[in-house]
Each structure stands twice: as C-alpha cells, then as structure tokens.
C-alpha cells in the first residue's frame, strides 16, 4: 500500500477509489482523531464542489452531439478501411516480391544446371574422341607393318583432323593435355618404317 497524506487518502475515499482495507483503516483513524474528521469533511466538501460542475450532456444539444458522434464514427471507419487497404497492398507487394525472387532463383539454378550439362557433354565428347584416337593408334601400333593398310592410315588421319577440329590439342583443358599425353605414348609405340623393330617385325613375317 502506498503511503499517502491524510488529505489525499480522504480524497481517494470520497471519490470511491480507496480499497476496503485502506478504507477501514482510514475510517478508524478519522473516528479516533477530531482533526482527521475535519480533514475528511473538507475533502468531502471539495469533492462535492467538483461534482457541481455541469455534465457535458446537459450543456450541448443532442442533435449536435449526435452529429459529432456520427462524424467521428465515420472518420474512424474510413481510417480502418484505409488501413486495411494499405495492409492488403503491403501483403500483395510482399508476395509479389517473394514470387519474383523465387522465380529469379529458379531461373538462375536452371542456367547453372544447363551450363554444367553443356560443359560436361563437351568434355565427355572430347574424352570419347581422344579415346577413339588412342585406340586407333594402339591398334595401329600392335598390327604388323606390312598389314598397315592405307585404310588404317586414313583412319588415323581422320582422327587427328577430328581432334584438331574440336581444339583437343589446345592444352588449356586438363582433359586435353592428359589425353594428348596418352596419344603421344600410343604414337611412341608405333615402330617407324626402317627401324630395327620394324625390320624385325618384317623378318618375322617373312
């Protein structure tokens, strides 16, 4: 309970705002001390003065009051409508931006996936071409010299042209350089015409 002066407690009591416990204490105090009773009477008189102020309803005609009330009510309704419209617009705008960002994200993912697919396909094709050439060279190296026909030489020529056309000789890509190493290894195994190995191969055949 807050500590109040006697005059303040009396004012609270006469205005009907004092709790029952505090009220009982105040009544007891007032009944015991004549000075307190005087203070209480004064507070009561003060409060009655306040109550003599005329009420507003008795001073303004009902038509004016009603007109003002209607105006306030209408203004509030308009404001509520406006607020609701603003809120709806805000939600719509937020949803639109969200949808746009989702669409943009999906488009970006699609572009990245397509890029990856194209690069992978390209690399795979290069890989296949290299392996194809490698196997042709290997085949050539393993076949005996007299049986190397013009056909197989043409095949090697076409493989090299194909690799050249697809920039496989460009050493920029890892796949290209590794493939080139394998090709050179395969080419190294082909015995040169007139070499000891070639002569040996021809002798063996004879």
């Amino acid at each position, binding site marked *: 309970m807050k500590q109040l002066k006697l005059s303040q407690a009396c004012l609270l009591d006469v205005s009907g705002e004092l709790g029952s416990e505090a009220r009982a204490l105040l009544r007891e105090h007032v009944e015991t001390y004549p000075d307190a009773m005087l203070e209480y009477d004064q507070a009561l008189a*003060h409060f009655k003065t306040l*109550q*003599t102020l005329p009420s507003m309803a008795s001073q303004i005609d009902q038509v004016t009051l009603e007109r003002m009330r209607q105006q306030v009510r209408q203004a509030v309704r308009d404001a*509520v409508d406006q607020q609701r419209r603003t809120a709806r617009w805000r939600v719509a705008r937020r949803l639109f931006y969200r949808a746009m960002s989702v669409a943009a994200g999906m488009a970006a993912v699609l572009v990245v996936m397509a890029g990856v697919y194209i690069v992978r396909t390209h690399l795979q094709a290069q890989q296949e071409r290299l392996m194809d050439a490698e196997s042709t060279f290997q085949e050539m190296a393993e076949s005996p010299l007299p049986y190397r026909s013009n056909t197989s030489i043409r095949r090697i020529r076409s493989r090299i042209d194909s690799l050249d056309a697809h920039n496989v000789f460009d050493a920029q890509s890892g796949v290209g350089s590794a493939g080139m190493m394998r090709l050179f290894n395969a080419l190294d195994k082909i015995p040169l015409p007139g070499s000891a190995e070639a002569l040996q191969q021809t002798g063996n055949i004879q």
Partner: protein
Amino acid sequence: MDAQEVTVLLAQCQGGDKHAWDALVEAYWQRLYGFAWQSTKNPELAHDLVQETFLRVVQKLERYDHRNKFDAWLFRILVNLIRDHSRARVRRPIRSTVIDNVTGAEITDDMAARTGPPSDPVHHQEDVQRLYEALEQLPDMDRQVLLLRHYGEMPFKDIAKTLNCPLGTVLARAHRALEKLRVFMEVDHETA
C-alpha cells in the same frame, strides 16, 4: 465497460471489426469530448482533437500493450494533442474561426473562450459561470486533473498514468485545485 470487456473489444478492433470500432467510439467519445471541450473551450476544435485521438488509436492499436490501462492510454493521446495544440497556438497565434450553429455568426477562438460553454438548464447559470471562471484561474496541470476526473470520468490512479506522474502528485494537485475552487467560489459569493 470493465477491463475484460475493453480487452475483448480491442481484440475485435485489431481484427478490423467495424462494429467493434463503433462500440469503442460509443464507449469513449463523450468522455473524451467533454474533457477536450472544457480544456480548449472550443467545441469545433475539441471535436477535431477527439477525432484525431481516435485516428491515432486506429494507427497505433497494433502496437498497444494490453497490460496497460486503455483509458489512460487513450486520454494520454488526447492530453498530448491538446498540449501540442496549445504550444502551437502560443508559437503562432492564428485565430481559427468557427460558425455559430444557431446564429450563423463567426466566432473566433478568443470569443469562444470568453463566451464559455452554453447555458445549462439544470444548474444555476451564475454559479456555473463562476465555477468556469474559477477553473480558468487554476494552473493548467491542476485544471487538467479536475477535468480528467469530472469529464473524463477517470479514477485518480488512471489520471496519474495518463499524466505520467505519481498518484500522490495527482491527489495533491486535485486537493490544491479544489481548495482554490472553493475559496474562489466563497469569496465570489461574499462579494456578490
């Protein structure tokens, strides 16, 4: 309207229920208007300020903390609006003009203040006039406490919350103001 009912009504208002807003206006409009009218002594201005108070409530109700007392919050908005208006008037004393409903004559702020509220059929006209004059002589803060108590129909505890000062201070102001009011009335009666 008790606190529980007010809470339910406010929840409905927050949900955008127009009937709830009507009910809220209905419950508080007259008290707010009575206080604003007595504070400004200008019926049209009081009407505008009360309307503005409700519009602020519409704007701010989402952020209103339900643990607080709604009455105190509502009246604090109005008290601040009245204070802002008084300050603006002191800085830039422009005379607003309103049209008298009955005669159609133009009434300025100053005239409205002099003429005071319309006549009261219930109370004795001279006594009422004296009471208004006595009220006019009170310091602003003291008068505000009495007007909030009488026209705002607020308990002193809520007045303390509205004016953001301790209950003891509000009671001291009320006591002092009522004392002055009584002295003024008694002196006036004796001289009359």
